[in-house]
């Protein structure tokens, strides 16, 4: 069943330049799609257009349609492009929620972590008081945070980067969206923490049967978590297909370059390991 249909999506800047041009794709319920490209390629702008949150001054055209039977008073198809702000606000969180790249700035620095996680739980599930408190603790436990009671009482600057990203994931999941958008969620983290957060995200999306739109510039990370991938360059989708197809037989020169550089990095790591085993100086 198709959850999201993006067709002919254009995002135009104030000077008339296309930031995203003619991007089309579909996403099934529970499917995982990777959006890959260098910075400025329009990945994040595509994600913002899907949530209807493009910054003022940009014009969005094309269509972004969610097929979610029974979600909104019997209305099955929801068109995001051109929808009113009030209506979008009531739909956001239920349709989509987003995990951002930099968890330090994505959390309110002056609000205790527990309250930030509580906000969507209160709104979505109507919880209050003791039940809300228990739900916050459960949400923090679900993202494998040790000592959730202490974390809930902490301010964002008092916990580590990995912990912050887990909190951000807990907040996004608390909305219980049909589609989770992860915008470079591991880029700001240490490599070892990256792997943990990826595994966590993988498991949680699987458990809940959510669709996932995973945005990254890192081919290795995307190929680990996504089933299909779209390669963006200068706002244009230059290639799309299953992860296996794109990695094994890249058609577009840019994709080849991307796969090539990922291979070279891997190769460098391998030869360093071989060198160490052979007893030579790497």
């Amino acid at each position, binding site marked *: 069943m198709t959850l999201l249909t993006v067709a002919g999506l254009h995002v135009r800047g104030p000077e008339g330049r296309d930031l995203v041009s003619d991007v089309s794709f579909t996403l099934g319920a529970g499917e995982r799609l990777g959006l890959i490209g260098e910075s400025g390629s329009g990945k994040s702008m595509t994600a913002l257009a899907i949530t209807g949150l493009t910054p003022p001054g940009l014009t969005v055209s094309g269509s972004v349609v969610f097929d979610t039977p029974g979600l909104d008073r019997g209305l099955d198809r929801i068109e995001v492009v051109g929808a009113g702000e009030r209506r979008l*606000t*009531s739909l956001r*969180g239920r349709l989509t929620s*987003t995990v951002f790249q930099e968890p330090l700035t*994505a*959390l*309110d620095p*002056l609000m205790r972590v527990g309250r930030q996680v509580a*906000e969507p739980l209160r709104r979505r599930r109507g919880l209050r008081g003791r039940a809300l408190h228990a739900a916050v603790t459960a949400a923090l436990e679900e993202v494998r945070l040790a000592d959730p009671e202490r974390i809930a009482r902490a301010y964002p600057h008092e916990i580590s980067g990995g912990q912050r990203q887990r909190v951000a994931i807990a907040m*996004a999941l608390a909305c219980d969206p049909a589609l989770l958008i992860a915008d470079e969620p591991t880029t700001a983290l240490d490599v070892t923490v990256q792997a943990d957060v990826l595994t966590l995200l993988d498991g949680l999306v699987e458990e809940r049967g959510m669709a996932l739109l995973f945005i990254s510039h890192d081919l290795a990370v995307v190929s680990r978590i996504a089933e299909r991938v779209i390669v963006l360059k200068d706002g244009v989708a230059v290639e799309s297909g299953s992860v296996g197809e794109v990695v094994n037989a890249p058609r577009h020169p840019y994709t080849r370059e991307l796969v090539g550089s990922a291979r070279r990095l891997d190769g460098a790591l391998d030869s360093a390991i071989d060198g160490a085993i052979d007893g030579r100086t790497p």
Partner: protein
Amino acid sequence: MTAGRRVPRSATLVAGCVLAGLVLAVAVVSFFWLPFPPDDTSGDRLMPPGLPHLIGTDKLGRDLLTQLMIGARVALEAGAGSVLIGAVVGLAAGLAAGFATRWLDDTVSALLDILIAFPTVLLAMLVTAARDASLGSAVIAIGLAMSAIVARLTRVLVKRVLAQDFITASRTSGTSWPRIVVEHVLPNIWPTLSVNLALQFGLAVLAEASLSYLGLGAPPPNASWGRMLQEAQASVFIAPAGVIAPGVLIVVLVVGVNLIADGVRDVADPTRRRTR
């Protein structure tokens, strides 16, 4: 680093509270007890400090301590009233400008610049001409002048907060604008804004003293420190207490309030507490 409910200690805050609290205590006492009735001119003129007039008398034979105590009341009323007007009007205008579209924002900003460039004394004279020479007129004039400054600061702070990721994050999860303002914008501008309001309180006390000195403040027999200075000016070499006493009290209150402003900054922002 645990996040308990500790009340952070701040030496400046304590010092500020002691100084401003002193003036506040004097003002509170003035409502219940005064050494002499405010309009009692039975004392000798220009008496030096002693008994029964502890700080002496003015050129009409009125007790100086009595006037100083009433002056404390007037100074605090002027400060609190102006800050209240300045905060409410300024915050509303600043929030509107911060959220507004480009065109409206530019218009409001230009108006604010004009209002800020307008001298407070001139504004006070206009208000006085339109109403009457009273503490209320002075407070309205000072409050209006202050609201322009508060609005400009609020506008910048709001714009800075709105550009942050956590606002976008909050919107992606479906939080409505009014809720974002209450939950995220106001708490995030408050640390800076509260410090500014505390500083503005001190400036308002000074402004009221200046206006009273010029005869644009509270009329007699409501003694204001500014008018006491003006009345004692001619006899400063014969009876210096009449000038020194209100002068010292103005300094005590303004310095106390400024120290509180500094202390509030340390306490209001939890991200600064760690460095202590």
